[in-house]
């Protein structure tokens, strides 16, 4: 039996997916979820094979939810986004259904999924693209045990590389996120977040002082009291953004 999950905030939108699934007896809907948080929990709990996922949802949107899942199952997006906005994800998701869609179109998406089963879509690429194209990069979603934490980017003090993870420092402490420094340097606003060192990205609004450390290397002092090393190549970047 194939386990499927429907994640959409509109009951009627979920009901139409259920209705279209009636002719596919092998697929069983294990749960319906109304927002990203619920969806995330349901994925952990049921480990579904297939998800019908809306993009625009309360709490966290579909892309943000997927970011949290370590090994996301196959995804079919169901969305009212216009084609242009969704095209970026076309090659990474199994398929995307533009609301409203027909039974024929729905069956075609399922056929596509069956075809691709086993070959394993490139989820990592998909997620990176998704993150960069997500409607709002005004916040970062992190997992803190079973808890989901939403960090507005303005609350980020600095980022530090930590092996395969990035440590995000905020007033409330630090959070780990399984992304690369390169990812963050692309996603965050480059006029606010500057990569001052191979292992550090800093929120320049919080820099209070810049002290010379050795020959051609510096140390930035933040309002929080943290000291961030600034490398030889990081210093000119800081200089041009801060304009001194």
């Amino acid at each position, binding site marked *: 039996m194939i386990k499927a999950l429907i994640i959409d*905030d*509109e009951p*009627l939108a979920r009901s139409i997916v259920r209705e279209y699934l009636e002719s596919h007896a092998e697929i069983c809907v294990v749960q319906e979820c*109304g927002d990203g948080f619920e969806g995330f929990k349901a994925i952990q709990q049921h480990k579904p094979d297939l998800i019908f996922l809306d993009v625009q949802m309360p*709490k966290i949107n579909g892309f943000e939810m997927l970011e949290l899942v370590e090994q996301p199952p196959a995804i079919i997006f169901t969305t*009212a986004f216009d084609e242009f906005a969704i095209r970026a994800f076309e090659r990474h998701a199994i398929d995307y259904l533009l*609301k*409203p869609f027909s039974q024929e179109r729905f069956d075609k998406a399922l056929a596509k999924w069956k075809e691709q089963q086993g070959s394993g879509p490139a989820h990592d690429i998909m997620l990176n693209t998704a993150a960069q194209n997500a409607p709002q990069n*005004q916040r970062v979603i992190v997992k803190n045990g079973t808890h989901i934490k939403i960090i*507005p980017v303005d609350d980020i003090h600095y980022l530090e590389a930590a092996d395969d993870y990035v440590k995000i420092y905020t007033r409330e402490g630090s959070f780990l996120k399984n992304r690369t420094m390169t990812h963050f340097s692309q996603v965050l606003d480059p006029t606010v977040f500057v990569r001052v060192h191979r292992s550090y990205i800093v929120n320049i609004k919080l820099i209070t002082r810049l002290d010379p450390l050795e020959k051609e290397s510096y140390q930035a002092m933040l309002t929080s009291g943290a000291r961030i090393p600034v490398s030889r190549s990081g210093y000119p970047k800081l200089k041009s953004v801060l304009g001194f």
Partner: protein
Amino acid sequence: MSKRIRGFLIAAAFLVLWIAGHFLLLREWGFSLRESITDAVVSNFINILCCAAVYVNLRYYRPARSRYLYFLLVCAMISAVGAAASRYVLGKFPNSEEYRLLLGRSTGLRFDLLLLLTCCVALISELWHTIQERREQEKREVNAARMAREAELFRLQQQLQPHFLFNSLNSISALVKSEPAQARKMILQLSEFLRGTLRKDEQHYVPLCDELKHLELYLEIEKVRFGHRLNTRIERDETVDDQPIPHMILQPAVENAIKFGLYDTTGEVTIQIQARLTDNYTVVTIKNPFDPETSSPQQGTGFGLHSTQRRLFLLYSRNDLLSTEIDGNIFTTTIKIPAHDKSIDHR
């Protein structure tokens, strides 16, 4: 037309005065009555012809570059011709010896006088043309600005959320099989709403009660989509029903309330709309809850109400008609529409 006649009369009066002065001067110098009259009339007619020639010339041709040098050249040429003509014509009359002497010596003076006159004409006409051109340009600019404003107003008014449309159609698609009656009802509501949105008639202002009806329609559709958790409360004084407000001015604020209050939250929500009349304003407040955890309100107008702000500014040249307020998890939008509006002429 009367303006032109007045101009002619003034010019004629000038000519007469000029001739009189000229005549009196010659009489004082002891020339005969006939000689004085002939000289005064002939030379002043030639003078006025020269002025007319300069005027006509400059009316049809004004060089873009080194304009003043051109004026001087034209005036000098015409003055020289005029002075020579005066001398030639006046020489044809039988005159006394003294007069002949005067005629011979005064050619230079006549030229100078003519040059002075024609240059004055040239400068005045240049001034007039410049003012005229500037007026034309101002008119064009005002026209262009008005057209741009109208286009912008139209665009701001026409903003329809495609998401809303497609999601509504999707809901209808879901209802068709399970609840056909409900599906038909929603099609009718959606059609009526769209008709109101697409209304292209000249009317920029509609009575408040019509606007509120349109909003109710919109909210009804949202209730079908989110019926299980959307409540709405619309309250209004009866006195405000007929107050004219700009068409669709409330729609974006209500859409905004729906976006943050309904799309971005999970529990039951109440969207509240209140309309009342104060001293000089029709005041509409829209209240919606929001999730402070996921959507951080921005500064100023925030929550994407810029188009409404802009539209109010274009209509009333004021930036203080839209205000927002956050109280706990309740977001309040207040829109004030000046009553007894006299600026309804921007069509």
